[in-house]
């Protein structure tokens, strides 16, 4: 049996945190050795390990647990990535309480390119502006050959992944649950698409672990820790995204933020960060400068999209739209003074040219 399985099994033991695991692995030099000592309760007392032979959901930990674990890992295509693994992101080693064991599903090769990665975080409940920004930045960064890392949650996370999936580089979702658990359910298709497009799902939790509220802050430390910098896309005042930004700062990572609308209060967190000295991002290419990254030949020219021609009337509609927000038909009728039937045709044409999006409350201009 592989070393990783022993390491994974040990990680399940209640009482053995990342620090204890580190001590055990160093002392016994192999996970297998450590496992046998743990199982027979004869661990070197000087290591100070206090544990119970149960996992978090009170399953007894024994030899059959080990076999079951091996089977589950295989069945769910989960790779175990330990500290020693060549895939383990180096940057993650630097952070406080860095996870000894990670689980990956999908293309684990991407973990070797984490020196060219950025995290995108933001509120689950976000404005349509936030979604637009996240999609735009996600796609643009991906097309610059940057790996976008986010949390696979609803709202900004989802939009960031969606944007990145439209681009060229793979994307990584760091989850707060076991990788055979789909959380949130509504993002099932998103996860499937990430896997399909050579992306990676990453987690520090073993198979079957359900999402719990305390998992998310610790997941955030992985997101901010494994990447070069964190972009806060849309965060309200005192939100979880700001905590992630805080962690990033504490671990010596960069924090970027994108300014938003001051009237709607949905971006108050972003603006607070700006006041605290975060780097303001208005153009995705800015990050190339920040890190001295070169444009990757493979990905160049991906950003230039086909230019759509618009006629005079369509231009009139485009000009009447609110930049970065919803525009209702009502407003368009008012400002353009066009008859409703014409307006419908023009809006559909613009939508087909992918310059605007029809939302449940009106239309949104693409950035």
């Amino acid at each position: 049996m592989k070393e990783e399985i022993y390491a994974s099994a040990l990680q399940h033991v209640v009482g053995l945190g990342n620090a204890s695991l580190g001590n055990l692995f160093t002392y016994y030099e192999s996970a297998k050795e450590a496992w046998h000592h743990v199982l027979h309760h004869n661990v070197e007392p000087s290591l100070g390990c206090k544990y119970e032979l149960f996992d978090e959901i009170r399953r007894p930990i024994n030899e059959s647990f080990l076999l079951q674990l091996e089977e589950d890992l295989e069945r769910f295509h989960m790779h175990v990535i330990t500290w020693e693994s060549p895939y383990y992101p180096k940057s993650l080693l630097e952070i406080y309480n860095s996870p000894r064991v990670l689980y990956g599903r999908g293309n684990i090769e991407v973990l070797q390119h984490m020196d060219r990665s950025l995290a995108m975080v933001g509120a689950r409940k976000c404005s349509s502006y936030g979604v637009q920004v996240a999609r735009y930045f996600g796609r643009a960064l991906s097309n610059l050959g940057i790996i976008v890392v986010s949390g696979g949650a609803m709202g900004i996370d989802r939009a960031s992944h969606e944007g990145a999936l439209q681009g060229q580089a793979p994307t990584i979702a760091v989850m707060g649950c076991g990788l055979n658990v789909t959380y949130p359910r509504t993002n099932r298709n998103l996860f499937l698409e990430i896997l399909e497009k050579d992306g990676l799902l990453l987690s520090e939790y073993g198979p079957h672990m359900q999402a719990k509220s305390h998992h998310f802050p610790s997941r955030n430390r992985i997101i901010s820790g494994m990447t070069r910098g964190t972009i806060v896309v849309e965060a309200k005042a005192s939100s979880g995204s700001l905590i992630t930004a805080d962690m990033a700062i504490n671990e010596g990572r960069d924090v970027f933020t994108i300014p938003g609308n001051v009237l709607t209060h949905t971006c108050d967190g972003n603006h607070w960060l700006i006041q605290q000295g975060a780097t303001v991002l208005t153009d995705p290419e800015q990050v190339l400068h920040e890190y001295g990254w070169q444009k990757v030949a493979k990905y160049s020219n991906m950003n230039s999209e086909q230019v759509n021609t618009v006629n005079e009337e369509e231009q009139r509609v485009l000009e009447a739209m609110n930049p970065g927000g919803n525009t209702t038909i009502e407003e368009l009728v008012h400002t353009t003074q066009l008859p409703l039937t014409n307006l419908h045709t023009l809006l559909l044409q613009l939508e087909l040219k992918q310059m605007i999006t029809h939302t449940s409350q009106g239309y949104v201009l693409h950035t």
Partner: protein
Amino acid sequence: MYAKTYGVCVSGIDGYVVTVEVDISPGLPSFDIVGLPATSVKEAKERVRSAIKNGGFEFPMKRIVVNLAPAHIRKDGSSLDLAIAMGILAALQEGKHKKKQSIQWNHHVFIGELSLDGSLQPVMGMLSMVMGVTNQELENEHSYTSMVEDIIVPLGNQEEATSGSSIPVYGLSSLSEVVELVEHPEKKKHLSIQTSIEISKHRMEMLDLQDVKGQVMAKRALEIAAAGGHHLLMTGPPGSGKTMLAKRLPFLLPPLSREEQLEVSRIYSVMGLLKSGRLMEERPFRSPHHTSTLVAMAGGGQPPKPGEITLAHKGVLFLDEAPEFRRPVIEVLRQPLEERQIHIARIGMATTYPSDCIVVMAMNPCPCGWFGTEEDYRCTCTATQIQRYQRVLSGPILDRMDLVVPVERPTLTEIYAPRDEVSTKQVRNRVIRARAMQMERYKGTNISVNSHLSHSDIEIYAKLSEEAKNLLDSAFTTLHLSLRSYDRIIKVARTIADLAESEEILAEHVAEALSYRQVQEGL
């Protein structure tokens, strides 16, 4: 001593003639009713006994058996009281004048409830009952009812009964009056007979579309809904005018035809909701509260009664705060919306009620109502709550909503802006023209409006121009539309073309139809 009279009962919303046979024979005094009477009919015994006595007649101290035919249908309600009482009096008379059969008891149909003092009380479902008599007579020309000359009803029901009957109706106020009329038919002349009821002059106060400021998109959606009979879903924050808009929809529809008036009135008559006995001249607008039960919505109970969906027949069923309804209460609408009628099956009886209405649903964008609006920052819901709220309406129900329209709160400037608001009259004229076009097109089929088109009908009746077809095809690939929405969009485009009085569906009609489609929220 034997006699036979005719009464009427209601099953569902249909009246049917009941033959009341009375036999009085010597023996220990008793009074039995056979022929599947429900409790309310059994109770008639006490009312009939007292009414006969207090009406100035003699109640025979003999063995009385009353048989209600046909015996296999359960009879409910108090409408048979009069027929039973008249049957007993007829049987007594029969005994007295053995030889000359001058009094023709079975030339009348008796409908009415008796009170203990012998006066006649109005009953529910009068319209269905007289229509039942008239129809039965027409159907079986040689049957026993063909000799029926008139219908005798309580005075309070006269107006309602007259409007649905093709034979004379006499409204009387007591048992003794009824007996007198039957014994002396020549007195009929002195009674005023209303052959048909005049159309009331004062219509219900019309709610005009002009009162709604702005909301061009929603108003247009109402127009399309009215023209093609399409179901409509409105989303918008509280106070944006969703209810105000929905209440104006019935007035955009063409007036009810005489047949439709009778159809709708029958339903209301059975429920005892017909105001002052007049026919329903306005299209019904029903807006059940979201705490309504399944039975209240679909109909049912023992004996079965029509539900809200039937009460909205030929009108509008408005479900405000649709996600707050209990899920089965909304889901039950699926089949009736498709078939435009609802089958209610209960132990011992099954009945079918019509349910051809336009359903208008209104919902907020999130539980608190502010998400995604101008005042988004007021929203206090979590992402999960919003998703759950938006998912409450199931796919099959949303599939039946042909039009989805956002309703925004108007700004103050919009309210005060002097603008030419479209009036109900203008819109209704367009709707009437569009409906006339549909009537012409679907002549000889059972389709009356575009929303009734099935998938195969669409290929026959909803031809797309070349340009429109190309537009629709490219929209499908670019906008990732589901195949299920394909038919819906064409049906709506058909109605938009009808409103523009165009036989062919053009690109602009498809473009407009596409703007009323359901869009996924990007959370």
